[in-house]
């Protein structure tokens, strides 16, 4: 009976994971279409009527400037993926590198420095810190990315450090050291590859966090400077909602909700599949 329940649960998890994957792939294809120039290219043209209702010409209606909300919402998928990919890759890489060094050199100055730095950054309220960095660097096209990478790496570093500390006392690592391989090679060839499951999950979590943070920063005027994003659309909608026009708000909110839902389902499924306890079932 217990086994049956567990089996059903696992099935449910995998179904939700599959749903998440489908959603993510759908959005990814949209982003590819925008990158390729097949969709969303007319996002900046202001050639419609102000606040036109959704219809065959304007699928999601138009905004105050007469811009096509559908085009803008679709182009924003590209913005979301660009930020998600750049931030998740770089913050995961940075966190993995610093965490690996800290774990390999545990209880040394290098370890202490990385832990101190991560502790200091973690002690600052997250959104306040990201907003402050983005504000300070405003004018630089990559200000928002730098702000996010500067904060996202700490969690990955802590996890990578713990995993490396665990792995470095394993026999295959001891053997590698015994035959005289240099530390960097052992780390690169034998240790880090064994932390990939953690890094993969962290990357997916960072991806979601980056998209959410971008929306918040753009809403505050500290995010995307030249282009469009769901955050900018939501910021525009604050004025439109007052006037009784919800198309911009709904389009950006629903697209954001769906993409985040997909990523959350997918990362949950990844987490479960990499969980040894689940694997044992």
């Amino acid at each position, binding site marked *: 009976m217990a086994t049956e329940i567990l089996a059903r649960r696992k099935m449910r998890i995998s179904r939700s994971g599959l749903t998440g994957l489908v959603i993510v792939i759908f959005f990814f294809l949209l982003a590819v279409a925008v990158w390729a120039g097949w969709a969303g290219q007319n996002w900046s043209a*202001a*050639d419609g009527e102000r606040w036109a209702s959704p219809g065959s010409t304007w699928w999601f209606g138009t905004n105050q400037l007469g811009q096509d909300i559908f085009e803008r919402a679709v182009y924003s998928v590209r913005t979301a993926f660009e930020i998600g990919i750049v931030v998740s890759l770089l913050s995961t890489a940075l966190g993995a590198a610093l965490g690996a060094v800290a774990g390999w050199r545990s209880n040394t100055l290098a370890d202490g420095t990385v832990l101190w730095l991560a502790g200091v950054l973690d002690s600052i309220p997250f959104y306040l810190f990201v907003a402050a960095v983005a504000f300070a660097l405003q004018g630089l096209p990559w200000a928002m990315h730098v702000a996010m990478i500067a904060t996202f790496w700490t969690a990955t570093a802590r996890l990578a450090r713990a995993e490396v500390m665990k792995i470095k006392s394993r026999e295959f690592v001891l053997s590698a050291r015994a035959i005289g391989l240099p530390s960097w090679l052992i780390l690169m060839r034998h240790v880090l590859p064994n932390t990939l499951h953690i890094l993969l999950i962290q990357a997916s979590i960072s991806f979601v966090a980056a998209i959410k943070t971008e929306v918040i920063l753009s809403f505050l005027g500290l995010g995307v*400077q*030249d282009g469009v994003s769901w955050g*900018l659309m939501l910021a525009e909608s*604050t004025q439109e909602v007052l006037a009784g026009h919800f198309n911009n708000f709904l389009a950006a909110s629903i697209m954001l909700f769906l993409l985040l839902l997909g990523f959350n389902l997918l990362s949950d499924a990844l987490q479960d599949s990499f969980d040894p306890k689940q694997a044992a079932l």
Partner: protein
Amino acid sequence: MTCWGKLNPVIPFTAKLLTLCLAAIALLAVTACDDRSSAEPGADHSYRIYRHAMDGAPSSLDPAQASNIYANFLAVNLYDTLYRYKYLARPYQVEPNLADGLPQVSSDGLIYTIGIKPGVHFIDDDAFPNGQGRALRAEDFVYSIKRQFDPKTRAQGTWLWQGRIVGLDEWKENGSDYQQDIPGLKALDDRTLQIQLVAPFPQLVHTLAQGYSAIVPREAVEHYGQEFAIHPVGSGPFKLQRFNSAGAVLLRNPGFRQEPFSLEAEGFDPALHGSYGLDALEGLAPPFTDRIELEFIAEDASRWNAFLAGELDFVKVPVSQFDQVLQRRDPPTLEATLAEKYHLLANLESGFVHTDFNMSDSKIGEHPDPLQNVRNRALRCAIIKAFDWPKRNEVFYYNIGQVFPGIIPPAAPEFDPQQDQSSVKRDLDGARALLAEHGWNPANLPVLEYGFPSSVTERQMFEQFRSFLGDIGYPPEKIRPLTFATYGDYAKAYLNREVMLVTTGWTMDYPDAENTMQLFYGPNASPGSNSANYQNDEFDRLYQSSSSMQSSPLRTTMYRNMNRIVIDDCATISGVSRKLILLWSRNFRMLPDRSFVGGFFFRFVHTGSPGATTVEQVP
């Protein structure tokens, strides 16, 4: 509380007690009302309250810091200025306030002699001996202007008189010693002032109607020190009861001079003002309101909802509500249900919004090579031709802004309603032809950097601008945003000539087109007020000649010629004067103003009908 607590158990006793309580309340109310009505001529024995919403808050109540409309509103009510603007006359006209008449000006236009009304006192305050406000003297004005030039004050109004009054700048350079006299700024006696100018400055009288020129008593400044910013001691129509970041409460100054209100003197026009019930004010002595409750509500939705909920008597309607509020835009007409409850006024701003080309940038402005210079002018003119003013007006100003050509806005007396409108008419074919004729094509067009402080509206204006230029074939990727976190950063950048296209608004300090002409006067180039860095010898020559002239048809013609020069040089995409939609309860007889009259209108707010807000308790 006590009364209600004993109501149920013992009815006969309760009835007695209730009667006693009601009698006590009635007695208190009658006493309170009597106390106030005794000070109000023609009053109907009610305590009058006016609740006004402002979309920003002043950071200081010191007139030396009255640099924005919010601080100015309070400064001119808590303090006295020598002059003010007539309540109803348009174009705006200067009217003596504390002065006993218009200044006597010497024939060379250099010496102004101004008399002060007798019997004016500062409010009672601990700063004075025995706490009793003393009489205001001409020397107080001298002190107040000196204070503007004292570096310790960190005053923001210095620019109004800098280089204008004989000896004032030297007084500052010599250490701002208040014992030291200034040759050009003298109190001849307690009620007579004399100002000697370095050169004729016809706008001087306007500067004396600004909050910056409000008269403060030295005792209070020294008594309160830093606290003076929140502890005003003036002679204005109101005194402060409470002030914080959320609002302020002003109470009628019972000692304010009694001057009967004259409809004729204030510029009353039955055709324009008849529906506001102002004729009933004839002969009454302002201020007509006992208490003004100011709410500082920056958020549009909150301000609007508070007004609809009846918590405010006046509101500036958020732009996003125009469609809901207005039945018709031209002329602005209220929806029927709202019109039953509220008066409406479409208040044209005393300024304008314009986008300047940075003429010191050789990619778009002046170029040392004459040929390229001609090409750059053609490019600027093509951009101006591509600009769709009706669309801009429709999207951002709901079609009730007033688009006009050049740099003399409609609020200026020198505005010419008959002038040529071609510079604000869209001409896409003309723009394309101009580009082609001068060898511009998508490949060689320069990258334009459009600067703005980061905000939704500014960004949308940029996107619209990019869209306009797209219609003449300007590649969108060549029109880039240059964003700044704050307006301060943006201003710093354009004052350093780092922004190619500068969009700013200018609110006139006084109703004289000189105030906008100086925005394009060569010597005022950045970091001065000429953010276009525009240089034209003919323009500068006309400016120099006209700036010392009194208002006259000749001066108006010169201003209009200067306007033409700027338009012909295609130095700016200009402009639009915004209209503010102001609503107020029909219970009030008043005509609000956000322009030159500004805060001066508070003294004329009258609680006209029985439905208006009154209280029966001492606040």
